[in-house]
């Protein structure tokens, strides 16, 4: 497991608040975020807050940048998120980041979130990061 990614998760207050864990980093960065009551977005449906799901997707993408960009977290320029299914409370969220392109100035990363099965994703993000130069 990449020690820089583990260190980032351990030292970043934002990541610690989410309780996100690194599952693997090869070939793609994959994370697991356990359910917590303070993630509730809709108390009637007991569902995850959409913005928290976005945060976890962005965090997984940031870890991918750390992996491919010489252990340097790149600034996020833009995120486009499609919500595909309700993200149910009491269930953890899995996220996996795919490197689409690693350019000299821009990193393009897609991240997918699921709960029960990867074949039933709950959200998908297209992220654009700037490389520090």
């Amino acid at each position, binding site marked *: 497991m990449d020690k820089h990614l583990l260190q980032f998760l351990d030292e*970043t*207050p934002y990541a610690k608040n989410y309780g996100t864990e690194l599952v693997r980093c090869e070939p793609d960065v994959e994370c697991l975020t356990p359910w917590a009551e303070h993630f509730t977005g809709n*108390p*009637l449906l007991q569902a995850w807050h959409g*913005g928290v799901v976005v945060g976890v997707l962005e965090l997984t993408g940031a870890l991918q940048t750390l992996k491919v960009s010489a252990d340097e977290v790149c600034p996020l320029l833009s*995120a486009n998120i499609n919500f595909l299914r309700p993200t149910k409370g009491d269930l953890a969220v899995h996220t996996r980041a795919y490197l689409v392109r690693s350019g000299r100035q821009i990193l393009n990363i897609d991240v997918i979130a699921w709960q029960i099965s990867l074949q039933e994703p709950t959200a998908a993000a297209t992220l654009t990061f700037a490389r520090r130069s």
Partner: protein
Amino acid sequence: MDALQLEKVYELFSAGIGAHSDMSLKFVSTEENRVVLEMPFQEKHATAHENGSLHPGALFLAAALDSACGFVVLQSLAVPQAIATINLRIDHIHSAPVGTDVRIQAECYQQINGFAYVSAFASSLDGRKMLCNAQGIFKIGSPGPALDRSLLYRRGD
């Protein structure tokens, strides 16, 4: 949505949703189809430690922007209905300065064919520094109970 219904949605927004309590989101003002919220700085929002100091990045703003967008859609509905976020696009422009609170403004600028279109932005409290800009699409009348119905039910307890 009349004043009483709006008050009930406020109540649910402020206290009934764990993510909102966690972010300590506060209402500043509301107008027709527009809402202004503030989020106080909290150390847990910081995205990195660099050289021993906190560096709050833009990541933590996504939840506050989504909340503001959702609330302005609920507020703009003539009849309370369940809503669901379909798409959210966020441009991260500046990182939030260390220790400073953030203001979020959202406007529902169009509703048509069961969809609501929202624009929002996060800025410094004085509005001079734009931190994030967002565009959202929400489905109106999505499966699931409308939020304010539970409050009506609670009142009868």
